[in-house]
């Protein structure tokens, strides 16, 4: 057995599942947190190994128990998902790492690991049926979180029920109807207006860590790329996704500006960026798709940075309304700096990984329709205003006085520094990200062209 034949992906999914079972039996939150670090770090290493194996020989077929069981490969990497899978594993590791001690008792490590297994499997999945099953399984961890916190689940169940119905309908139906139903499912999952309120509700009621990991990776984009784009869908389906996403991007950016609660602000920031990323779908040219894929990678990291910073602040100051200036700068300047850096990275500030991604996206959008380009610029401008407004409200104002040190801890620091490093490296050496995503865009479009050709025959 060579390194290339090791089923890294299966191991990366199995390990957190095993970890979820083991940790479920540990009562001490600090011990379970330490164990979760070991599990998520090893999972991340396994995903990296899978990526490395794919880079060495993309055609290598590992010896997989799952393949033997089902009769075909279930988890596999290609140009699109090869870097995404380790990325998702890293986000889970950093979320666990950035969990403050005060929150360890309330944040379920078992659910973190369960979610990690499902999400890694989702992003490592290529076949539509498998992907649909995993997308439906992905609904469970946030639901369990809401139930555990005794929060209302009506909004979540309504939207996820709709998502499941549309997804199954899309699988069962054929032709244009299937494409339309799939489009509907993708729009619900990515939080497109007016079916976006479940994201706002989730951020308000679930734990911030669970909400972030459920929504920030923008699973809807992955579903769109796997289920809608290559399926020879008519152009109007892609245009429909693009236009709905464009409206969402502007609407959610405007909503983010007027929010009086930091969690809702974050929710709308995520929704708006999900919309911006999905706009690239409409254009399906290699440049716009490269822009969309690059922006996707960039905003996931940046949004996680903003989210983890807010989560870290909440661990100290409880929920943070944006109704008055809170003066937190003096309590923890590092939080302020990281919040601003990651927040500005989401809007493509120069020197951050999103700068050229936004440029590419707008360039592609202008080629297709100048108004789309203008709309994208408006959305990014509004998001920029929302981020700086939140920064000013949280960190300026009468100094917050506390008898205990409230500065950032080493674990939290490492988590946000890793994300910041990605943001800055992506900003100063953009070719690495853009090249990688360009090949992914070509791969996706080649699949679509092949599908179109089959359809025509």
């Amino acid at each position: 057995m060579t390194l290339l034949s090791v089923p890294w992906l299966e191991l990366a999914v199995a390990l957190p599942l095993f970890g979820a079972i083991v940790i479920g039996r540990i009562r001490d939150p600090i011990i379970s947190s330490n164990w979760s670090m070991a599990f998520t770090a090893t999972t991340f290493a396994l995903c990296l190994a899978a990526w490395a194996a794919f880079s060495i020989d993309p055609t290598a077929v590992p010896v997989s128990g799952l393949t033997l069981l089902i009769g075909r490969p279930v988890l596999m990497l290609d140009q699109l998902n090869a870097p995404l899978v380790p990325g998702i594993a890293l986000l889970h590791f950093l979320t666990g790492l950035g969990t403050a001690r005060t929150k360890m008792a309330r944040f379920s490590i078992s659910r973190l690991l369960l979610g990690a297994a499902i999400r890694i499997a989702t992003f490592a999945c290529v076949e539509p049926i498998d992907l649909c099953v995993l997308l439906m399984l992905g609904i469970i961890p946030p639901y369990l979180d809401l139930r555990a916190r005794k929060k209302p689940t009506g909004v979540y169940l309504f939207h996820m029920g709709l998502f499941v119905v549309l997804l199954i309908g899309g699988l069962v139906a054929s032709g244009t109807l299937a494409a339309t139903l799939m489009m509907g499912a993708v729009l619900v999952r990515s939080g497109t207006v007016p079916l976006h309120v479940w994201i706002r509700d989730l951020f308000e009621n679930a734990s911030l860590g669970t909400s972030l990991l459920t929504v920030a990776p923008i699973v809807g984009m992955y579903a769109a790329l796997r289920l809608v784009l290559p399926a020879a869908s008519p152009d109007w389906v892609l245009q429909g996704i693009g236009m709905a996403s464009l409206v969402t991007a502007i609407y959610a950016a405007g909503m983010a500006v007027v929010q009086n609660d930091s969690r809702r602000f974050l929710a709308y920031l995520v929704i708006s960026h999900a919309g911006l990323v999905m706009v690239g779908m409409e254009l399906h040219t290699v440049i716009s798709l490269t822009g969309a894929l690059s922006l996707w990678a960039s905003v996931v990291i940046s949004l996680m940075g903003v989210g983890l910073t807010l989560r870290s602040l909440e661990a100290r100051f409880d929920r943070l309304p944006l109704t008055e200036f809170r003066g937190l700068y003096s309590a923890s300047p590092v939080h302020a700096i990281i919040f601003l850096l990651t927040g500005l990275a989401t809007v493509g500030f120069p020197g951050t990984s999103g700068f050229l991604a936004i440029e590419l996206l707008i360039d592609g959008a202008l080629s297709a329709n100048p108004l789309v380009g203008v709309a994208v610029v408006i959305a990014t401008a509004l998001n920029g205003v929302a981020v700086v407004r939140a920064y000013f409200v949280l960190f300026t104002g009468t100094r917050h006085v506390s008898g205990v040190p409230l500065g950032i801890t080493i674990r939290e620091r490492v988590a946000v520094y890793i994300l910041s490093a990605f943001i800055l490296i992506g900003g100063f050496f953009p070719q690495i990200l853009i090249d990688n995503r360009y090949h992914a865009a070509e791969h996706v479009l080649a699949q679509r062209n092949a599908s179109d050709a089959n359809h025509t025959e």
Partner: protein
Amino acid sequence: MIDLTLLASICGTVAIISPYVLVAFLGLPSLVGHPLTERATNRVSRLLITLGLVAVLAVLGLMLATGDRHVVVTFGERVSIHPHESHSLEHYHFTVEFEFDRLSVPLVLLSFTLCGIISAFATRYMHREPGYNRFFVLFSIFLAGMVTASLANTIETLFAGWELVGLSSALLVAFFVERASPARNGLWVWIVYRVSDAALLLAAVTLHHMTGEGDFDLMLGTEPWPYGRTALSEWQALVIGLLLLMAAAGKSALVPFSGWLPRAMEGPTPSSAIFYGALSVHLGAFLLLRISPLIAASMWLAIAIVILGLLTAAYAYLIGTVQTDIKSALSFASLTQVGIIVAEIGLGHWVPFLWYVALVHLLGNALLRTLQFVRAPSLLRDYHELENALGERLPRPPGPVAIAPLALRSWLYRFALERGYLDAWLRDYLVRPVVTVFRWFDRLEQRWVAFLNRRH
């Protein structure tokens, strides 16, 4: 034999990199929670600003020695996309490129000189301020932005510098973090800058779309400034020019964006001096000078620029005469001159020599205002001492409002005191409707969420 062109490129690279090294030296220790001491901050700032200044002087000397008026420093193609399909015409490339020419060298020299002076001034002025390190980090970001924007040879590079200047300005307006008022004003400045940035970004992307690349060569020609000839048609020049004019209006506080200028005075005096008296407020005018080939190509663009410049000059003169604090009065005096500079740039369509006049006017105004700003606190003290010694107020000549006809006087006073109602107009007719609509949607969503959650 030494290759002087290569030497100029090396010196140019040093000039461009030195502010970024300064940002890294000051910013990274802050990021890890261990900011440099005051002494170390001063030393690093002094060293790197001097290094940058010397490097630019060396480039200037080499340009004069070789007769080359167009030194290009390129950091290569950072991103290049050429689809493999032969039938596809799509391509994209992003180059980080800088140019030293007759226009950029004076401005970058001015930037290094004034930032060096203000840095030295601020070491004493800001001594033991709680945000000493933060001030210098933002100051270094501002310098990096100014150098980048001044020397940019592609519109994307210009945009990057432009954004850095905007962010550092807004954060320095809100420098005194323990008060809410500077934060509110900082946010207002940021909003105006975002409008300006959006216009510049649209111009950048429109240019990219029209020409396939963002290099200035196509837009402004390869000839040294101001003799460039654009490859764009008159209408293309007008569209891109108007977008750039909007960007310039936001950055230089031209009408109708002038309201942010007095708000920006909330920041510490050294930053007010360098940003709103000297450099930042002239960046819009510099951009218009840079796009002079577009102005030459489009008469309508030139007319729009002249009108905007004259309107701003008249507005700022009138408002400036009723200001009761010295920093606001100086900022409006500076804006009056900026308006005239902008009008001169527009008139350059008919008399190209005026572009040189505008450049000299810009440099002179920046230097004079910096001096006035840093002298302002001690000047007030001198005035008070003088008036105390005399036992009476010093005579003040009446302004234009005082000598206006009686029927007009009170209206003019109100108009000037309310700063032309520009802020109120923007707030009431632009910001408030947007906020009201989104708050209404927010309430609607709350009701919908409550309805769906009621049964669970």
